[in-house]
């Protein structure tokens, strides 16, 4: 590859922006083109289910960089023009408008899109939450209650997004129910100890928890608007507005026919490389984590930026295995929760600092002598200090040895 590669970044959100910034920070001054599906310059998604949904921030405040800072990066931004195909051999990206953008390196940062429920598409009053427009639509629907009886929100999905959005909506005074198959919120990710405390928190603040029941569908009011959420118990939960937060799937449809391996994400080697000159960053990237000895895909904000740094370095010839300690945070009512590592439901969870009674504590998740993760509940600094144990576990050499090469 030439010393100053021409770089095409597909995706103009946090991961795409971070890739451009990292390239420039590392001294790259060649041409960079960023192709984005949405019409907006890079904006931040975590506030959408918090400050934007709550209305405490105007949507503009989610902009990640000012126009001047973006301008200063010297990249070409092609926005509102989704990529429709990639030829990995010529490293050329085709777009919906008919553009063909070629480079020496292509960085795929197309993110993920929300999963939906069967029968969801034609119904009004049913939302997903990933983009600014979707946040605005949900907020408008929640506020549009005067005389319309649209007071009841059912959030389908008790993972991090569902639990967070339920907390925000409840804080707005909306009659909110949270439904899903787990017994307590986020149980699959965090286990029964923390999940139980989340359930207590939500119940205490007025969220109706209808957990332990799978959702089988949505009921129509006869006029094309949602009327309720159907559970597999046969019950119907009345709803005027529904938020479907049942996870996301990586945005890889446009790579069909490219010959690149897609398997719940664009499959990459330990250097986040899918093929010669083709890399993947952020929610869309499934790469081989040498510390864990397996491939992972992370949907979190911090990874988008950290992985962009690793990929920018690789594009410039400095290839090192990408072995991050995953990190995510969520704010629910008064609880600021920070998670370092990848806890699992079956890990041994123990409060190691503070106490749940005081509303401030750190939980350590262990499997044998290995610390899989730590969680801080209103103890961000202390959680970060415990992170050291997690970092050791994530840096450990893989028991199965070297990394496979992506095909």
């Amino acid at each position, binding site marked *: 590859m030439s010393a100053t590669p021409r770089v095409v970044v597909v995706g103009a959100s946090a991961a795409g922006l971070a890739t451009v*910034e990292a390239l420039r920070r590392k001294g790259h001054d060649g041409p960079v083109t960023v192709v984005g599906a949405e019409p907006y310059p890079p904006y931040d998604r975590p506030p959408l289910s918090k400050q934007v949904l709550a209305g405490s921030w105007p949507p503009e405040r989610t902009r990640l960089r000012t126009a001047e800072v973006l301008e200063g990066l010297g990249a070409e931004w092609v926005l509102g023009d989704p990529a429709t195909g990639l030829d990995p051999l010529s490293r050329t990206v085709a777009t919906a408008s008919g553009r063909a953008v070629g480079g020496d390196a292509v960085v795929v940062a197309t993110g993920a899109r929300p999963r939906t429920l069967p029968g969801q598409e034609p119904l009004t009053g049913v939302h997903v939450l990933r983009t600014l427009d979707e946040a605005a639509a949900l907020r408008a629907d929640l506020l549009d209650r005067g005389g319309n009886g649209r007071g009841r929100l059912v959030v389908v999905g008790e993972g991090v997004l569902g639990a967070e959005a339920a907390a925000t909506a409840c804080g707005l005074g909306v009659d909110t129910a949270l439904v899903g198959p787990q017994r307590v919120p986020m149980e699959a990710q965090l286990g029964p100890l923390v999940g139980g405390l989340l359930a207590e928190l939500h119940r205490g603040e007025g969220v109706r928890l209808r957990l332990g029941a799978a959702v089988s569908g949505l009921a129509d009011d006869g006029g094309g608007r949602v009327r309720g959420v159907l559970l597999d118990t046969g019950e119907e939960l009345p709803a005027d507005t529904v938020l479907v937060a049942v996870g996301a799937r990586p945005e890889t449809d446009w790579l069909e026919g490219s010959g690149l391996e897609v398997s719940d994400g664009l499959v990459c080697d330990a250097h986040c490389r899918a093929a010669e000159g083709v890399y993947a960053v952020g929610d869309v990237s499934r790469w081989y984590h040498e510390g864990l000895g397996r491939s992972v895909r992370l949907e979190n904000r*911090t990874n988008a930026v950290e992985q962009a740094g690793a990929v920018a370095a690789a594009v410039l010839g400095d290839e090192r295995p990408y072995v991050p300690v995953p990190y995510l945070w969520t704010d629910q009512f008064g609880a*600021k929760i*920070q998670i370092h590592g990848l806890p699992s439901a079956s890990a041994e969870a123990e409060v190691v600092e503070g106490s749940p009674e005081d509303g401030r504590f750190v939980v350590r998740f262990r499997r044998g002598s290995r610390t899989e993760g730590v969680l801080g509940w209103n*103890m*961000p600094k202390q959680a*970060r200090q415990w992170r050291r144990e997690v970092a050791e576990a994530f840096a450990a050499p893989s028991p199965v040895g070297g990394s496979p090469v992506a095909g």
Partner: protein
Amino acid sequence: MNITVDEDKCCGAGQCVLITPEVFDQRDEDGIVVLLDAAPGEEHHDAVRESAQVCPAAAITVDEDA
């Protein structure tokens, strides 16, 4: 270089402290960023730029001209 931080945006991730502990810290009680040095020496500039760019809440602003 002059650094400003937006405490209201800060989510307490502590990424800045991991990268530039000479310039950033966190409050013990809520993890919000504490700016130890708003105009650090040149030897910290690269790390400060990286801290600002990786901040997951975009809470750090760097004025290069100041």
